[in-house]
């Protein structure tokens, strides 16, 4: 117990030993120095002249946005439908690709440990790279449009769905699998009747969750030309039509809230 003695010879309780206190102090010192150093780098690369009138710029921006140009909303229904399609079809495509990857990546269903590391590599690569970067690449390859957005969303979803699903597969109960194996079932039949029913609720929940995230992400894919409402956002920003931008923001806000509500309801119903 960390106790130190006061000059009067009375024991005084302390939270930590002296050694631990020194260690903590040093750790804080090193951390603080690192942060100050990082701040230096940022501050060197910043033009402070621009920052000085940030308040004025901000209020100016707000003033330009404030009466939103509601008439513009009529022209947003088609892009909104595209955005929903990008998210939904992208999620569906991503799930189809993630499903086999997850089974190959789970320790208890993988055919070989080499296959497992390859599948894990696919999952990490897909998870590390944001859907916007995928979209940027695909737009240069496939040309601008909804298709690039769908594939970008799908590629990003593989990692997310694959990771959560393979973790769910690794946590299944082994007894049903053993029971099915004992009947002489083939490997595929074991998967179908022993593993799949156990992970299906988790799988459905993960898919709906990812769909909800994808709606959010697909609203901005248009910034790099991959279709959806982001195209209108980009055009409005480029022409400095901030009253249109605010209409788009409100639409995005509403869509995200609705999709979050749907996803929460569905997950609640499943689990």
């Amino acid at each position, binding site marked *: 117990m960390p106790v130190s003695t006061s000059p009067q010879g009375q024991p005084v309780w302390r939270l930590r030993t002296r050694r631990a206190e020194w260690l903590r102090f040093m750790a804080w010192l090193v951390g603080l120095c690192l942060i100050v150093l990082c701040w230096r780098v*940022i501050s060197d690369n910043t033009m402070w002249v*621009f920052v000085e009138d940030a308040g004025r710029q901000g209020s100016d921006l707000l003033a330009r946005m404030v009466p939103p140009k509601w008439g513009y909303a009529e022209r947003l229904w088609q892009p909104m439908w*595209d955005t929903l399609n990008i998210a939904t079809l992208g999620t569906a495509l991503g799930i189809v690709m993630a499903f086999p990857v997850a089974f190959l990546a789970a320790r208890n269903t993988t055919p070989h440990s080499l296959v497992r590391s390859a599948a894990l590599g696919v999952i*990490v690569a897909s998870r590390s790279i944001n859907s916007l970067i995928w979209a940027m690449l695909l737009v240069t390859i496939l040309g601008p449009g909804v298709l690039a957005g769908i594939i970008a969303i799908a590629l990003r979803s593989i990692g997310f769905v694959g990771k959560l699903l393979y973790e769910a597969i690794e946590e299944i109960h082994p007894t049903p699998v053993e029971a099915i194996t004992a009947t002489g079932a083939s490997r595929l039949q074991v998967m179908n*009747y022993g593993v799949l029913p156990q992970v299906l609720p988790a799988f459905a929940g993960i898919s709906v969750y990812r769909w909800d995230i994808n709606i959010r992400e697909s609203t901005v894919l248009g910034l790099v030309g991959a279709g959806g409402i982001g195209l209108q*956002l980009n055009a409005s920003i480029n022409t400095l039509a901030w009253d249109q931008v605010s209409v788009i*923001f409100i639409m995005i806000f509403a869509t995200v809230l609705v999709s979050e509500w749907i996803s929460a309801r569905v997950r609640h119903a499943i689990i």
Partner: protein
Amino acid sequence: MRALQAASSEATFDSARMHLARQGQWRPMPLIRDPRLRWGLALAVALYLVLALGSVGVNWARVAEGASRGLNFIAAFAQPDFLTRQRDILNGLLESLTMTLTSTVLGVLLAIPVGLGAARNIAPLPIYLICRGIIAVSRTFQEIIIAILFVVMFGFGPLAGMLTLAFATIGFMAKLLAEDIEDVSWKQVEAIRATGAGWWQTMNHAIQPQVMPRLIGLSVYRLDINFRESAVIGIVGAGGIGATLNTSISRYEYDTSAAILLIIIAIVLLCEYASSYVRRWTQ
């Protein structure tokens, strides 16, 4: 009455199934019991797919034209070029890493008061509502949208990026922290209060030790997310490796972009290992 009917139909369904099974024709249970709902859902999905796929306009000529570029890109992954643009890559990476660290620290520091305010069990109602509002706004908008606004306000460069990431961190951390605080064991709070401790002392000795392990784990996780996001917000001019990546892709220098993507993947992997290590150590 409705429930009774449903129960009886379920019973007949089960007995019919059992009857078939005794004759050696076993079938797995259908996922959705009610056949009307089952077929209705299938029909709705099919209808949606037809409508959605019909509205996806694909310019096949353009796709065929880009196919060779796609192959180039895949080939570039086999031979990533780290050296030609070494200076740009290093500068972008340094900017991204500094942005990540400072924004996470700033974001977590700001998220702690917001999180305390958004926990219903220790905050009064008006403060609770304000803090929940901050969290909702910060979580709804994508980082890139916030980045556009901040770039307009603060000019191009890493400062706008840092503030964007810090703002996004507030929503994320404050929400999870508030949920954690709402789940703390109240006994310890009562014990500390019984010693006559003030508000600060209660927070410091009753709440903080209970939420600290998860707070550290989440901060490290957020560090990882912020790095990934810092690669994106460069597209709209908020500095970092994203700007370098954007330039290299639009100049069709796929070998450089492949190198940058590989570096991002490696750093994310490293962060993930570090964060799982830290989480094991704190718990």
